[in-house]
């Protein structure tokens, strides 16, 4: 009986636990650190801008210009 419990529940559970512990996959909600971003490809994006234009990365920058993006908390606060 004990053996049966071990095989049916505990072993799969241990396998899943080990997979999670040693998995390279980030926990849900975890954000990439600055270092982890380097070397990765930028996602495609298009956003409305303060200049009344749609800024499209693919169209406006890709293959044309290097792009500096500064994320800041909110307008009218120090950046």
């Amino acid at each position, binding site marked *: 009986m004990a053996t049966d419990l071990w095989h049916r529940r505990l072993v799969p559970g241990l396998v899943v636990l080990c997979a999670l512990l040693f998995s390279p996959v980030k926990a849900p*909600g975890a*954000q*990439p*650190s*600055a*270092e*982890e*971003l*380097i*070397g*990765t*490809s*930028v*996602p495609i*994006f298009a*956003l*409305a*801008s*303060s*200049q*009344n*234009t749609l*800024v499209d*990365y693919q169209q*406006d*920058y*890709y*293959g*044309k*210009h*290097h*792009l*500096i*993006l*500064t*994320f*800041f*908390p*909110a*307008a*009218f606060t*120090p*950046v």
Partner: protein
Amino acid sequence: MEGHQRNLYLYDRFNARVAGVSRDDVTTLQYFAAKLGVTFPLLSNVSGYLGLDFGALAPGRPFFSRRTVIIDRKGVIRYARDGSPDFHEILTVLKKLHEEEDGP
């Protein structure tokens, strides 16, 4: 942002452009850009998805954290740093990217 505006002529020299990104709406960013006198775009990412992609939106926080990234022309992120922009670092990276493409 004032620092970016001050350095625009150098960014241009290194074939770089700059944009700010926040979760503000476009109208607010228009007022902000006018107040700052910046001539580069401020992008409105109300949903915050771009911040998530770049790791600038911490779980549970309504605003982006300060983070600056540099993306080269091939779409690869070559620099990322938290906090207010470090302009010496930014320009050093841009100079390096420019030299990679065009030689010193």
